[in-house]
């Protein structure tokens, strides 16, 4: 079954322990200076944003149908059955199409490196395989970030909104956006205020379909177009052949007449 993370901003106290645990899990540097950074980067996969002491996390959404995986020419990204969208660095050629294509602009790059890697939250696949929650969910002191089955988390989020309708905006961000994501957000604020793209702009169509509609026609297009081009070539050169044959005939006739 597919695992997911539910982040409930109303329970978050902004302690940033998830940032620290994430850094430790991914062997990234973490100190006061990094903690103060309010943008994600190649050394900061997740960030807790603060707006008037109302908090919001940003991290890879782990789309059900990830754009990054569909655009990568060498298939360096893939969605695992258990939920995480993971990255095989040894395949990567560094074209950065994933970064441009990601609707949440999550993949970051090691711009200063000579053998740069794409960096993003990979949802602790090793921990999940070992039956443990992600590092950020495990350390969260208030349960604001909760790890579990996606279906169950959606049901729980809906229940929370139902029981406390004044505390939440009535939507679960990530439930349907771009075909659904494995990170689900609940908040009293509009998540757009923290830089998330508006749901209306994202739509509910999985991103890979936009290119898939064109790509799926190519296998039909190739033989048809080859036949058309070959046909045109044959016709126009056949005409030439006929013309030259006729000319020859004429010459022969003329020659015969002499």
């Amino acid at each position: 079954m597919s695992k997911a993370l539910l982040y409930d901003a109303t329970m978050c106290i902004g302690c940033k322990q998830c940032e620290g645990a994430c850094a430790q899990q991914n062997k990234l540097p973490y100190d006061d200076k990094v903690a103060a950074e309010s943008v994600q980067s190649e050394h900061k996969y997740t960030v807790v944003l603060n707006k008037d002491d109302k908090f919001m996390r940003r991290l890879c959404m782990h789309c059900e149908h990830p754009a990054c995986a569909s655009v990568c020419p060498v298939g360096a990204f893939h969605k695992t059955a258990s939920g995480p969208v993971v990255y095989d660095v040894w395949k990567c050629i560094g074209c950065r199409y994933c970064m441009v294509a990601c609707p949440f602009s999550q993949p970051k790059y090691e711009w200063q490196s000579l053998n740069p890697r794409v960096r993003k939250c990979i949802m602790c696949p090793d921990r999940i395989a070992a039956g443990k929650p992600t590092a950020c969910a495990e350390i969260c002191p208030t349960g604001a970030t909760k790890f579990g089955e996606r279906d169950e988390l959606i049901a729980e989020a809906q229940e929370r909104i139902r029981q406390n309708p004044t505390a939440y905006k009535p939507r679960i961000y990530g439930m349907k956006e771009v075909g659904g994501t494995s990170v689900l957000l609940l908040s009293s604020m509009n998540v757009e205020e923290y830089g998330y793209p508006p749901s209306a702009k994202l739509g509910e169509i999985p991103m890979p379909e936009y290119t898939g509609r064109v790509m799926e026609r190519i296998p039909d297009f190739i033989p048809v177009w080859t036949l058309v081009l070959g046909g045109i070539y044959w016709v126009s050169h056949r005409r030439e052949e006929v013309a030259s044959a006729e000319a020859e005939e004429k010459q022969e006739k003329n020659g015969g007449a002499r």
Partner: protein
Amino acid sequence: MKIKLTFWKIVFLVIMALGLYSTFVRYYYGLGAISNMTDQFPWGLWIGFDCLCGVMLAAGGFCIVGAVYLFNVERLHSVVRPAVLTAFLGYLLFIVGLLFDLGRPWFIWHQMVYMNPHSVMFEVGMCVMAYTTVLFFEFLPNVLERFNLHAPIKWIKKIYPVLIVLGILLSTLHQSSLGSLYLIMPSKLHPFWYTPALPFLFFGSAISVGLAMTIFESTQSAKAFGRQLELPVLVELGGALLVALWVNALLRFEDYFHRGMLGQIVKPSYESYFLWLELTLAFIIPIGMLSFKKVRLSPQGLYLASIFTVLGFITNRLNIALTGFETYVGHHFVPKWTEFSVTLMIIAMGFALFGTAVKYLPIYPEEHRVEKARPQTLNVAAVSTPVLGHAGD
């Protein structure tokens, strides 16, 4: 022998020196040091110009080959070789550009091993690779002829129909797929440029620019190498260009009309200024110019119209690659000077290689024909003079 330093040679040397410095920075300090690309702008000038525009500028190859070999437009036969040369150099330089832009260019071969058939980039990559190979074989007879190796030319002539059909098929696929690359970014790319019609528009602009580039380089090389300008060829190309531009313009209009954008594109905004710059250069000026028969029949007029077309569609593709993302990102993208210098170096290499090839290879075979024909014309003159002389009697 003394090498004369002309103005353009000095410019060339300066560009190459700066480019080599930038190359050093690129491979010694990395992409962050040489470019202004960031996590917000992961694709900069190199994707925008070297790749998107480079492939478009090299489209003359398949346009002219298609016209001459598929549709038997015999009059264009004399520009097949220069067009194929431009295309071949264009694709080679596109690959050079990629080696700068890819973060891990040493793994470029992964493309052939870890294939992802869902990826547009994979399709473009494979097509470009295959088409460069096709162009190599289309170009090879030039070299073989130079060294009088006629046996292999015969073999290539035998597979010529296959090369031609394959070349046009591959070009159709990747020229349009360059546009499909952006189909997956509906929420990021500005609606002036994001449209499901992107693949069609890219294919259309490739044909327009392919024709315009052929006019441009024919005129340019006539100037540079003191060749006689073949006006009938240019006139033919100019007519085709006018039709191609009209088709493109109608497609664009149709697209904006269907998406209900006509009201928005006339409203003043940062994007609309860039859009109108593009539309003016690519459509309004060249279509306006070419609509006059006088312009269509004048070498200068055709030359100017082709320059506007090329500049217009370059603006178009840079708008798609850069301008169109600025509102989403929230700030402007200005390439670093080292990015420009790499691009300039690649363009300069293109010019130099083209010049060298024309100098040493039979790219303009009619040159020889003219030389052979000259004595004949002299004879005609010699014959006709006494006739005329007698006419006075």
